C-alpha cells in the first residue's frame, strides 16, 4: 500500500508554437506525499500541471494518475482530483455558495447544501455565503478556491502556487491546512512554488524543474541536509585565505568572487574549524554566510 504511485509523469514535452515550454519533465508522486514542485518563473510548472489535468495536450510523454493513463481514464481520474491552477476564477455574478454548487454538480460526487456551508465555514468565509464573488478580495477568492478544491473530497490535491497574493497569516493557514490534509486524511498533495523555503516547510519530497526540464528529484530532507555546504566568506586577506584552504582543507573546493569575497564548498562539520583556523592565521573574517548546497544551487538557477 505504501509507495503507491499516485502521479507518474514521464518525459513530458509541450511546445507553444516553436517555443518549448516543457522539454523533458519526469517525476513520481507517491500516496500520502506532500510533493513540492519547485522552479523559477517560467520553468514550466503550470504547463506541466495543466497537462496533468488534461487542460492542454502534451506533444510527448506519458502521464499516469492513480496508476491509470490520463488519456484513457480521464473522467474517472479527474473525479478524484481537486485543483487550483494559477489563480482561482469564479462566476463573478454568482454568490460564493452558488459557485461551489456549480462546480460540485460536475465534480462527480453528490455534495449537499450543508456540506457547502460547512466548507465555507472551514475556509473562513462564513457569513459571506450569499455574497457575490465579484466583490471578493484576492485572498477570499483563494480561500474559495481551496473550498472548491476540497469539496468533493478528492484523493489528490493539486495546488499551483496556492499562496501567491495571500497575507502572512493566510500563508500560514494554507500551510497548516495542507499538513492537516496529509496527517488527518492521508491525502496526496502536489504544490508548485518558486520558493525553496516554502517547499522545505511542508513537503517530504520534491522535484526541481528549470527551463522545462526536471533536474533533481528526491526526499526533501536528504536533498537539503546533504553534508556539503557552500560558505561565502568576506575576508581582508585573500591570499592568506586561499593558502589556508589549500593546505589545511584539501577536501574543499573554492571560487574567488572578488578580492574580498570567496565561495567555499566544504563539508558541514568542517565549517567551525575553517573559521577558527582563519582567525588563528590572522585573517579577519568580516562575514561568513553558510548556505546549504541545494539552496545555493537553486539560487543560481534563478539568477541565471
Amino acid at each position, binding site marked *: 500500500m505504501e509507495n503507491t504511485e499516485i502521479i507518474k509523469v514521464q518525459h513530458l514535452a509541450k511546445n507553444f508554437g516553436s517555443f518549448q515550454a516543457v522539454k523533458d519533465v519526469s517525476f513520481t508522486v507517491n500516496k500520502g506525499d506532500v510533493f513540492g514542485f519547485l522552479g523559477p518563473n517560467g520553468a514550466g510548472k503550470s504547463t506541466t500541471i495543466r497537462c496533468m489535468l488534461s*487542460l492542454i495536450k502534451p506533444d510527448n510523454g506519458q502521464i499516469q494518475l492513480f496508476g491509470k493513463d490520463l488519456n484513457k481514464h*480521464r473522467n474517472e481520474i479527474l473525479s478524484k482530483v481537486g485543483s487550483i491552477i494559477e489563480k482561482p476564477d469564479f462566476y463573478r*455574478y454568482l454568490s460564493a455558495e452558488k459557485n461551489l454548487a456549480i462546480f460540485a454538480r460536475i465534480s462527480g460526487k453528490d455534495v449537499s447544501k450543508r456540506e457547502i456551508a460547512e466548507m465555507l465555514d472551514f475556509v473562513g468565509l462564513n457569513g459571506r455565503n450569499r455574497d457575490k464573488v465579484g466583490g471578493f478580495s484576492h485572498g477570499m477568492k483563494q480561500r474559495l478556491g481551496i473550498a472548491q478544491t476540497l469539496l468533493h473530497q478528492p484523493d489528490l490535491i493539486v495546488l499551483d502556487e496556492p499562496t501567491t497574493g495571500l497575507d502572512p497569516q493566510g500563508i500560514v493557514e494554507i500551510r497548516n491546512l495542507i499538513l492537516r490534509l496529509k496527517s488527518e486524511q492521508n491525502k496526496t498533495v502536489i504544490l508548485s512554488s518558486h520558493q525553496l523555503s516554502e517547499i522545505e516547510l511542508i513537503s517530504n519530497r520534491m522535484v526541481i524543474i528549470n527551463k522545462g526540464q526536471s533536474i533533481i528529484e528526491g526526499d526533501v530532507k536528504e536533498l537539503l541536509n546533504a553534508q556539503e555546504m557552500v560558505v561565502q566568506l568576506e575576508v581582508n586577506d585573500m591570499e592568506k585565505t586561499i593558502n589556508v584552504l589549500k593546505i589545511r582543507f584539501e577536501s574543499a573546493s573554492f571560487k574567488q568572487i572578488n578580492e574580498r569575497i570567496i565561495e567555499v564548498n566544504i563539508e558541514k562539520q568542517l565549517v567551525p574549524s575553517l573559521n577558527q583556523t582563519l582567525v588563528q592565521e590572522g585573517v579577519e573574517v568580516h562575514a561568513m554566510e553558510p548556505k546549504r548546497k541545494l539552496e545555493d544551487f537553486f539560487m543560481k538557477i534563478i539568477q541565471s
Partner: protein
Amino acid sequence: MLLKNTYNEFIKILAKPRSYLGIGALTLLVLLILFAMKADGKSFISFVTASFEQTLSFNGNILNGNLIAFIILQMLIVHIPLLVSLVTGDLISGEAAMGTIRMMATKPISRTQIVLSKFIAGAVYTFILTLWLGFLALIVGKWMFGSGDLIVLNSDGLVILKEQDILWRYGLSFGVAYLALLTISTLSICLSAFAENSIGPIVSTMSIIILFTIIGTLDVSVFDSIKPFLFTTHMASWRSFFEDPVPWTTIRNSVSILVIHNIVLVLIAVYKFNKKDITS
C-alpha cells in the same frame, strides 16, 4: 453529467444581467411598435389599403392584431439575432475570459458534454425569446387591436387570409423563425469556441449575418449559385406560411438547409473545443 451541466448553464444564464437585456429590449421594441400603431396606425395603413377597402370582401378592422403581429415579426426578425448572439456568443468565450472554463475543464465532464450543454442552454434561451416575441406580438397585439382577417402584401400580390385560417400559420411560422434564430445561436456559440473574449463572437456573428444578407440581396449572377445555401436567405421563410397556397417545398427546403447548418456548426464547435489547449 450533460443534464447536470445544462442545469448549471441555466443558472449562469439566469444570473447574467445581459440575458435580461435581450428580453427587455425586445419587450420595449414591441411595446413601442404597439403603441405607435395604436396612436397612428390608421394613417400608416390607410394609404396602402384605401383603394382596396371598397372592392375586397374583408371582415373586421384591417389594423387588427393579426396584421400587427405580422408587421412586428417583419420589423424585428432583423434585430433579434443581435439579442440572441449577445447571450450565446458569450457562452464559451466569456468563460475563457473569466477563467472559469479552466475550472470546468478540470472536472470529470467531457469537453463534448460541456459544449453540448451550452448549445442546449442557448437553444432554450432562444426559444424563450421567440416565445416571448410571439406572446407580445400576437396575444398582446390581439388584445389591443382585436382580431380579424389578415391582409398581406406578397411578391405575387395581395393576399387576404380569413381570420380562422391564420392561427396555424402563425404557429408554424414562429416554429420556422425559431429555427432561423437557433441557427444564429448555434453560429455564435460555434464562433465562441474559437475566441477568448466575449465581444469577438458577437461582432463576428453580426458581421456574417450582414455580409450574407448583402450577398443575398445583390443582384449579381456570380452569387446566384451560393444564395440558396446561405442561412440568411432562409431567415425570412416564416413569411411563406402567409402565402396562399403555402409553398411547402420551398419551406421544406429552407428547413433542411437551416437544420444542416445547425448540425455542421455544432460538430465544428465540438471538434474545435475538444482540440483546444486551455491556457487562460
